Every structure is written in C-alpha cells, then in structure tokens.
C-alpha cells in the first residue's frame, strides 16, 4: 500500500517555468495560464479514456458469414462471462429447450428421465466462441466462461458445479438458496384433479404407496376411498428443517420437525407432465418464471412452530383442506392468507367443545398460561408466543 510520504517521495518536482513548458502546447501564441491548460488536458484525457473504454465495451458487429448462423456474443471483458444470467437480453430471447435438453443422460444421476445436467458445450459455444477461444480469453487462468459450469477453467477439467447452482461470481453475494426463477404452481387446478389413496394394509407393501393421510385411520374406515389429495406432494417428514420465526435459542430438535415435505424434484411434476399433458417436460417456462435477478427462495414462516401434523396425540383427524381452508382457491404456489385460521384449531382445542378425544390443551388454557408466564408455548415458539394473543384467538373461543 502506498502512503502519502512515499507518494511525495516518488514525485519528480519541476521548476514553475518548466511546468509551464510541459503543460502548454507550443504555439506562436503566448502560453495560456496553467489553470486553463489543466482543464483542457482533463477534458482531453476524459474524452480519450471514455472513447477507449466505450470501444472496448461496444459489441463489434461483424457481418455474419454464411456458415455462422448463431450470433456471436460481443467481445468484452472475459471476467464478465464467469457468471451466467438467464435474465440477460440474449438469453431471455431463446427458448429454454434451445440449450436445455430433456432428458439429459439421466440413468446415472436420477431414477427418472430428467433435465439433470448443464447444457452441453455447443449450447454455449455457438454464441460465445470468442469467450472460449480467443487469445484474450485463453490468457491468464483460462477462459472465464468455463467457470460458469466447471470449477476451474482448464481443458481437461471435468468437475462441475451441482446442476442448478452455477457459478455466481458476478453476483455480489448469492446465498445458496437463491434462484434465477420462481415457480408457478396453481394449487386450485391441481386440487381439482389429483388425489391419492390412503394406506391400505391389505395391499402388498412392496407396491410402495405413499402414506396419504396425516392420521391413523380407524380400521373400519380403511375400506373407503378417500380424498387426501395433498399427500401426493406433501408427505410426513420429521426431519424437515424449516426455518421458523424463532430465535436461535429456541431452535431445538423438537421445533419444526412436524411439517410436511415439499416436492423438490421434477419427479413430482413429470409423473403427469412428462409428455402430452401441458406444460410438458421440455417446457421449462411452463413452471419456471424468470426472476429479475437472483430471487431468494421464500422461506416458509411458521407462526405455530410447535404444531405437529402427526401429533395431537395422533388425533389430528381432519382432512388437509379442513384446516387449510383457502388452498382449493389459491391459484399460486404459496396460497392465500390466512391459510390456517385459529378458528380451525378451535374446532377441537376449545374448553366447551365436547370431543371424544383424551384431554387436550385448549386455547383458553393457553390464555391462562399467558397470564402466568407471558408466553404461549403449546403452539408457538417464543418469538410469537410472547406476544399478546390477537383478537382472532378470543373470537375463536367465544
């Protein structure tokens, strides 16, 4: 690092007359004052630097030869190509399947046909030949564009990033859970058509049906067909780690273990949408909508972080839509608010409710608890439980 002293030391000093000689253009006219000359010099310098910089950034439009059909990407700073953005103008203008092929070679990586890998080299090279093969690109540590998919830019570098998480060097800070796309999923349309069978103990377990209810059905009820359609995608999961609105101190193994799984692979969609049923497998844009830039995956906020679908002493006997009252109406992925109103809980967790269940904690009891300890801990983690119960809770038990 250069300090002030060393700067001064390194500066060559000239007498004033000599300075004038250096800074003034020799002409027949007498030399102008120094202030004006400095100004002129600055303007000239800015102009020159600006021109050079602009020319480096401006794409050079070469006439396309007859053989080169794909338009070459502009020659620019090689480092700029180390990050890939679906949202760039050029990329946006392309069909998804012009790069992504469905399926890729899937048998080694998946149990089902899938878009399981980065597009092949041709998808990049057909436009970015200059970023791969020019002397400028090959200088230094190699073509930066390689590092969009590969860990290093080297001719024999095989190791790649995990598909779906390309290099994000161009992004200041991209947490791992950020994506360039959001997902469109109309819950209402899917509610119209899908449903799943409940577990039937008479069937061969090797068939592998998913557990379709969030309660253990009575034996005599098993013969009936049922309508737990949510369970096609959302299954019980005790290991799910969903970040709640809890303070770190509250995070224990007990918290957040009881929410349902969410689909995280194409398998959940392709089993119906692989072909014929739109949007089909190679129509990425049918479900993935481009975000303006990297968008954070919406973290699910759990107000009742202690709630357990499988809990309730195994007495949570209602159907999903009985509590998630708006989900058959929601045309979006995340549904509508309130998704589960407290009134749904009050159907059972209420003092004057005559239930056949064993003793359960009621909302009224939690009110008493709040008076004593200033915390409702049965359903809520402390970040929510320490707040005053909202009017909806009073209304629910009236």
């Amino acid at each position, binding site marked *: 690092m250069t300090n002030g002293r060393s700067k001064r030391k390194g500066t060559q000093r000239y007498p004033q007359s000599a300075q004038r000689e250096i800074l003034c253009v020799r002409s027949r006219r007498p030399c102008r004052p120094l202030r004006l000359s400095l100004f002129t010099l600055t303007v000239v310098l800015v102009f020159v630097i600006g021109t050079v910089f602009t020319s480096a950034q401006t794409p050079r439009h070469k006439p396309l030869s007859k053989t080169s059909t794909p338009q070459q990407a502009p020659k620019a700073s090689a480092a700029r190509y180390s990050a890939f953005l679906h949202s760039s103008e050029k990329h946006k203008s392309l069909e998804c399947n012009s790069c992504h092929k469905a399926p890729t070679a899937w048998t080694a990586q998946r149990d*089902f046909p899938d878009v399981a890998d980065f597009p092949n080299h041709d998808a990049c090279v057909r436009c970015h030949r200059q970023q791969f093969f020019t002397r400028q690109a090959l200088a230094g540590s190699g073509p930066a564009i390689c590092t969009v998919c590969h860990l290093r830019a080297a001719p024999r570098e095989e190791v790649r990033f995990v598909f779906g998480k390309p290099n994000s060097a161009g992004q200041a800070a991209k947490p791992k859970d950020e994506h360039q796309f959001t997902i469109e999923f109309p819950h209402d349309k899917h509610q119209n*058509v899908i449903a799943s069978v409940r577990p039937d103990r008479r069937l061969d377990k090797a068939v592998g049906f998913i557990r379709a209810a969030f309660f253990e059905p009575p034996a005599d009820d098993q013969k009936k067909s049922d309508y737990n359609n949510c369970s096609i995608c959302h299954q019980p999961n005790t290991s799910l780690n969903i970040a709640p609105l809890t303070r770190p101190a509250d995070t224990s193994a007990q918290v957040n273990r009881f929410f349902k799984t969410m689909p995280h692979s194409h398998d959940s969609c392709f089993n119906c949408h692989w072909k014929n049923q739109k949007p089909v497998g190679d129509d990425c844009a049918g479900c993935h909508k481009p975000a303006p830039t990297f968008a954070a995956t919406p973290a699910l906020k759990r107000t009742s972080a202690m709630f357990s679908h499988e809990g309730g002493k195994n007495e949570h006997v209602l*159907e999903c839509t*009985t509590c998630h009252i708006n989900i*058959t109406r929601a045309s979006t992925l995340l549904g509508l608010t309130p998704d589960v109103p407290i009134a749904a809980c*009050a159907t059972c967790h209420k003092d004057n409710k005559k239930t056949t269940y064993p003793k359960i904690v009621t909302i009224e009891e939690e009110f008493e608890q709040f008076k004593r300890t200033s915390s409702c801990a049965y359903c809520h983690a402390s970040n929510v439980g320490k707040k005053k119960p909202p009017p909806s809770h009073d209304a629910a038990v009236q």
Partner: protein
Amino acid sequence: MVTRAILISSFLLFPLSFFLFAQTPDARTRGVIRLKVKYKSGDVTRELPRKRFFLIKGTLDENRLLIEKIKQAQVMSRECYYRSKGASEALIKWLNENDCDSVYCREIEARYLSGSDTVPEFQAAYNLGLREFKTPELARRWLTVNLSADIRDGFYKQKQEVLDALVKQSEAATKTRVMSVMTDRKGTAYLTDIEPGTYTISNLVGSETEKSTILWACEKEVKAVDLAIAMRRPFTLSNEKDPKFKCEIVERLLPVCEKTAK
C-alpha cells in the same frame, strides 16, 4: 409563514390519512361463508365431497340470464363420456368406484395392471412405460403420460371448458371476479375475504351423485363477520327444499348410456 404552511398542510393531511386508514381492508369488514353441501339419495343423506362451488356477485334475479344458461348447459355424464370414447368396462368401473373425473384422481395401483382387476387402458400404458422408463415402478407411477388424451382427462376438460365459459360470462356481467372453492370430504368449504353484499352460490354444472346430477343456484346475503362466528353458522345447500333459503335446484337422473362397443 412556514409555520402557517405546516399548519395548513397538517389540517389537509389529517382527514386524508384518516380516510386512507379507514379504507384499508380489515378482516372484520369482510365476510365469510362456511358452505355445507348435502344431498339426499333414497333414505340416506350424504355430504357432497370434492365438488367446486362458485360465488357470483348479485342476487338470483340479477343473475337470471346466467342461471338460465347454467340450467341449459349440457355436460355429458362421466359414464356416457367414457363409453362414447370406447373406454373399457374396467376403466369405467375404476372411475366410478373412486368417484374420479380423470385418471389423475388416484395413484394407479399394481393390481389394475395384471390379474382379475386389470384395466386394459392402464395395462397398455404401463407396457409402453416399461419400454421407455425401464423400471416397473416408474412405469407404474408415470403411467398416465402414455394414456390417450380422451381417456386421461377428456371428461374433466370438457366439463372445465363449460365451467370456464360460464365463469367468464358471469365475470363479464357482474364485473367482479368469481371466487371458487372445493368441498372437503365432509362437504364443507370456506369462502373467505368476501366483500359484504348479496351473492349467488352455484356449482354451475350439475354435480354427479350415485343416481342423479344436482345443480344448485342459491342466494346468500354476506355480512361482515369474523371467521370464528361464520364457522359456527354454516350455509347448507341440499337437494331438499328449504323455505328459509332462496334456492333453485335442478336434479336430473343420470342418463342410461349405450354400452361400450368393444
């Protein structure tokens, strides 16, 4: 001078802010309907599960044109549709047993792919899947991708086309978005966040039961109410006439369909 300007603007802004605050939608200024749908078939009363109901702005009289159109709308019954498409008896039986409008309604179990319960359409699609997907489990789970469109969800789509047209028409007439919900297995559904007023609740296309199709168009006045209160007071639709409610109910016996040729 400055003080005076501040004072004047404060006087102007205060009522404006109050007005804006008063306009913010509050849950307590919105209405909720707890819908309960039942039907009587013979001596038994049952809840109507998994049927979609629509909330249309306006009274029955205001929606008269639409209601007439709903009554006239013809949708082929599920059985007749599948018979007209040459579906096998086994497939028709499978759809009826599971009360499914399309094959997506249930995961297709292995017993329908071979043996006495075989559904020929499923078996053929499964065999195609075996060649394409290699593993029997995947071929079974992804079976529907190899079914023809008519068999897969043709009936659902033809019904949906009629529904979409009716919804579009009612939205154009009322200039209000039509809300819809689906009943759960107990025949219950919630319509929330409703602007107070009078509405028509209808399933727009007759819902199939064991022997008949039932079409409802009922009038309901919605007041601002808390959800907890609305939950205690369901609005019940039934095919039995109730003088307390203004309802138009059309019940038609399911037609007898011609047997599948093959």
